[in-house]
């Protein structure tokens, strides 16, 4: 049913990659057992900085998961045929990213064995409850869509008609998962750094820049490794999407900086100062903040200039810069920065410990493993069926 037999046939290079990922996961599992027995004290978290690497990575990866919509929406709502070979890759990436999100939340829990309490004693007033609903739902949606698409391609037929409303539902749902994640932060009265209406739009903009950037990199990678070509037009169209999203993201950041520094309100300014300049002897975030801004600027420049955007070499560089800068901004600066200073003014630093980093790397490796296996299955299916997905999943208009 899952066509996994296609994933166990591969070159030496493939198996070395799988082996590396499994090795990372094994190490992470060992450290997680330590964390499970000893407690979250094994991390660099503290009474003042209570969310760090795990929740930061979760926040970033929710964006990557949501970004599949940037490929799905043009294809299914606007008949943008050029994305035909890309949509299933985007959906596979989405499922893998959502899985890592859920895993990051689970490894962050102090009492993971009680995780089901969030369902048993549901509290709709809590944004975390809605986050659970939206992540679980998005996982089910995308897993269904991916499976059905692959099966249809394998059999060489169009997918069943009922998948169309499911795909259409995944579009607003993708927006919602990242909005709800932003709501986790932007409704807290005691955290002025997060208490801004622009947080959700900023999240979405950075998601729609970083996710498709990763997708471009993955498509180029599999073109080089496997020969599966999604098409020059598809790549350049997604690059345009990344450009717009990155422009909006940088614009939003500048808006935040203006409001904070023109108003001169200390509680607004101090978080940004802490991130970019370092305040009160505490500068653990500064390298991340500064490099994030520099990379964002460089990425934006490369993306806006048509020559560098169209040149594949510089596009790859731009995508890497986009992804890494937004990862540093959202995965590290945003979450940790909100806790510094603490409600009582303490400037407690945060440095992740080795076990924490290994567990984080392990969850990323699980995501990478899922993407690898999915792509292997998808591409083998495409080759075997001598199809290229371009004529596979039908659009709404055709079905009618």
């Amino acid at each position: 049913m899952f066509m996994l037999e296609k994933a166990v046939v591969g070159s030496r290079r493939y198996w070395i990659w799988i082996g590396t990922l499994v090795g990372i996961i094994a190490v992470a599992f060992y450290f997680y057992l330590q964390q499970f027995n000893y407690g979250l004290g094994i991390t660099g978290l503290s009474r003042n900085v209570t969310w760090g690497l795990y929740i930061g990575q979760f926040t970033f990866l929710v964006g990557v998961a949501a970004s599949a919509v940037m490929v799905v929406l043009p294809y299914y709502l606007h008949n943008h045929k050029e994305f035909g070979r890309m949509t299933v890759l985007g959906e596979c990436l989405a499922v893998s990213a959502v899985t890592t999100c859920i895993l990051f939340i689970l490894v962050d829990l102090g009492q993971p064995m009680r995780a089901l309490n969030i369902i048993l004693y549901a509290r709709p007033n809590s944004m975390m409850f809605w986050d659970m609903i939206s992540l679980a739902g998005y996982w089910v949606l995308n897993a269904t869509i991916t499976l059905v698409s692959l099966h249809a391609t394998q059999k060489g037929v169009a997918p069943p008609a009922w998948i169309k409303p499911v795909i259409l539902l995944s579009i607003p749902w993708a927006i919602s998962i990242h909005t709800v994640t932003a709501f986790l932060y932007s409704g807290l009265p005691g955290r002025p750094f997060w208490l801004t209406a622009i947080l959700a739009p900023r999240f979405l903009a950075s998601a729609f820049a970083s996710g498709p950037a990763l997708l471009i990199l993955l498509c180029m990678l599999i073109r080089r490794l496997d020969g599966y070509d999604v098409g020059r037009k598809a790549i350049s169209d997604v690059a345009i999407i990344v450009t717009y999203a990155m422009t909006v993201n940088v614009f939003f950041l500048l808006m935040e900086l203006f409001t904070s520094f023109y108003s001169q309100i200390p509680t607004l300014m101090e978080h940004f100062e802490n991130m970019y300049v370092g305040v009160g002897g505490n500068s653990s975030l500064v390298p991340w903040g500064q490099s994030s801004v520099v990379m964002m600027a460089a990425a934006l420049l490369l993306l806006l200039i048509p020559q560098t955007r169209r040149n594949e070499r510089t596009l790859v560089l731009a995508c890497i810069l986009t992804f890494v800068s937004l990862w540093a901004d959202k995965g590290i600066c945003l979450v940790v920065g909100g806790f510094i200073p603490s409600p009582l003014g303490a400037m407690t630093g945060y440095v992740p410990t080795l076990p924490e980093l290994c567990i984080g790397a392990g969850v990323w490796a699980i995501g990478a493993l899922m993407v690898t296996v999915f792509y292997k299955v998808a591409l083998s299916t495409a080759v075997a069926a001598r199809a290229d997905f371009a004529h596979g999943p039908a659009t709404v208009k055709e079905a009618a």
Partner: protein
Amino acid sequence: MNISRKQFLKLTGASLLTLSAGKLWSALAYAGQAVRHPVQLIRGKQLAMLIDTRKCAEHPDCTRCIEACDQAHNIPSFKNRAHEVKWIWTEPFENVFPSEETRFMPAGLKERPVMVLCNHCDNPPCVRVCPTGATWKREEDGIVMMDWHRCIGCRYCMAACPYGSRSFNWVDPRTALGELNPVFPTRTKGVVEKCTFCPERLTRGEEPACVQACLAGALLFGDLNDPASEIRKQLETQRTIRRRPELGTGPNVYYVI
């Protein structure tokens, strides 16, 4: 009998589901054994505390309230400040009331130690964000309570609290405890804790441990909804302030500066 494998699996699945449904039902609905006598519940209370920082400042080295709380509730004391657990503690005035700080202040006021604890807010953000209901505001007395059986340790409440009142058990607290007080449980690693206004003492008719321990009379505890209570009289006769009232949380710990 000509049954396909698919049909057999479907039948087995349905049977298992039916059987487990019965078990699930009985697990959820265990019957009570005997008639219970509930403690008389006085509804409509809003318990609150008034802290006179002037009286506190007369005894700068006094830590009686903190020690009483620590002893009564088995609160661990960690050398590593990152893991510290505290329900009531002192902070300098400038940290507790940043909006009250001015360039020129009476001598000693800026650094004056102020007791801080959970404010048991009228509109608590921590209760709003808790995904499991492990923390909630009791109707009977207004205490924002903790259920350590239900807490999953997500620490969302700690992010939501504007006062930094909550602590998390990063490791097993028993590693930083000496002799245990058997009257009150410890907590375990992975749950959030905070001051609960001592409901276990209130049911016995006693005041919270900190209030009872204070020899300077700096801590006053009572029901805001009772017009005859001492705390009401005090609040109506002298000027008091609260921490960050502009956030709309409605804190119930008042301070005389």
